[in-house]
């Protein structure tokens, strides 16, 4: 039984990899299987987790949370889209979702991204220790702190919308985009290794579990 499973998995794995050569029926079969199976998987998971686990359990437990009915009513309104005459009612749950998302994200992103990131950039440039002699911290830290503070500052300058990137402002923006380019290049190079280990894992499956060629 297990052997059959490995062969099915190997067939699908090679089918997906064949797409690298070019689009072919083998890939199309794998693609359609994946779409069908995954759509079914998600509906089953959503059904057991959200409908039974969250909604039904929430209503039928001792102190039932009737507010969940609000969600159900909005959900039904969403389904009314299928009825052309009153299809416009589906805009109500939609505007509820957009309003909730806007409000929730505004505060969340503001406090976690802006406040936290700004406060952690407020580093002393020269000597980190309190009252230590001026240049006690090694060059490594001093340069590091200066780069972090200056890079963040000029990065923000680059993102300015309402001011022409000219003169001193333009130079600061140029340094800003350089910092951002270093960030993109560095994080691209850094993640290459983790992407490789995914492929190595699949190759180990093909050569090891399936073909048994790896000792």
């Amino acid at each position, binding site marked *: 039984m297990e052997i059959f499973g490995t062969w099915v998995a190997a067939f699908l794995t090679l089918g997906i990899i064949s797409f*690298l*050569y070019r689009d072919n029926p083998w890939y199309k079969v794998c693609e359609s299987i994946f779409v069908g199976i995954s759509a079914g998987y998600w509906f089953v998971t959503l059904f057991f987790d959200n409908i039974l686990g969250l909604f039904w359990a929430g209503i039928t437990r001792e102190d039932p949370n009737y507010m969940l009915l609000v969600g159900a009513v909005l959900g039904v309104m969403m389904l009314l889209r299928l009825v052309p005459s009153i299809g416009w009612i589906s805009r109500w749950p939609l505007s509820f979702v957009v309003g909730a998302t806007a409000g929730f994200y505004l505060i969340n992103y503001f406090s976690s991204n802006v406040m936290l990131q700004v406060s952690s950039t407020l580093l002393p440039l020269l000597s980190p220790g309190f009252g230590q002699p001026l240049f006690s911290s*090694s060059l*490594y*830290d001093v340069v*590091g702190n200066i780069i972090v503070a200056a890079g963040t500052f000029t990065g923000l300058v680059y993102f300015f919308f309402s001011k022409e990137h000219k003169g001193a402002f333009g130079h600061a923006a140029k340094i800003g985009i350089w910092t951002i380019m270093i960030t993109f290049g560095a994080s691209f190079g*850094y993640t*290459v*290794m*983790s992407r*490789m*280990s995914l*492929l*190595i894992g699949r*190759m*180990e499956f093909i*050569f090891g579990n399936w073909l048994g*060629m*790896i*000792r």
Partner: protein
Amino acid sequence: MSSIGLIISFFIIVAGLLWLLIQSIRGQEADRRVIFLFMAIAVSVPLLFNISFSEKATLIVEDVYRKIENLPAGSKILLSYDYGPSMSPEVEPMSNAFLRHALVKGHKVYIMCLWATGQSLAATAVDSVIKREFPEKVYGIDYVNLGYKAGGTGVLNVILTDFRKMYLADVVGTNLDSMPMFQGIKSLKDMDLLISIGGGYPGVKEWILFASAPGNIPLAGGCAAVSAPLLYPYYPRQMIGLLGGIKGAAEYESELKKNHPQRFANMPVPGIKMMGPQTMAHLVVLAFIVIGNISYFISKRKGQ
């Protein structure tokens, strides 16, 4: 088997790269499928012929190796397993390498963990590494497993001043005072080196802030690659060194093999083995960047 494989695969890849170089000199762009083929070869060949490269240790890893190597025999090293099974494949090679190095140098190893899941991983390490490869080591004299204690940074706070306040006995319940290796050990301050392995919370950062810094005890770290950049700023002043991901473990393993060839002749080296296909793939990507730029400059010059 692997030496023949090495020659064949090197020949295929080098010949291929040369052909690509000539193509690019003629200004032709390599077709993306050729690049895919090279990647497939670069990853599967080292797997099939288990090719590996001797990794030369970078400074951040070498500092840890030199520290353990130069400590006088019998020094006291504390090893903390602060990770779970999901991170284990990436950090287990380095924790085993630390264990082997400490034991071969005759140091006393004190094992503990701040993660509940670390306890079983530490136990497997004791069985698979210490008991099997170092049968001559005696529990309670050469190594001890204190097991898991809940409380995270609270635990560090206590053992910084007094071990016995938090650990009255080891993981199997034997009283600390009955073990020779605990004579004269009052707190973390009596340790010669702390090593924390794991990238989550509590992890290396908490060991720095709550143990190594306040107690002024040298600390080395080991973590998953993804959390290494967050720990780099602590090197070198608050952390003597750090092993990041499989690459860090591979570098440490190759140092061990290089400096203790007889003792570790057939030591398992999962790090180096995993780094084989990784290094080959990285070299191929680097080669493509170089070739890409060559063909760009040539086509630009031809364009003018």
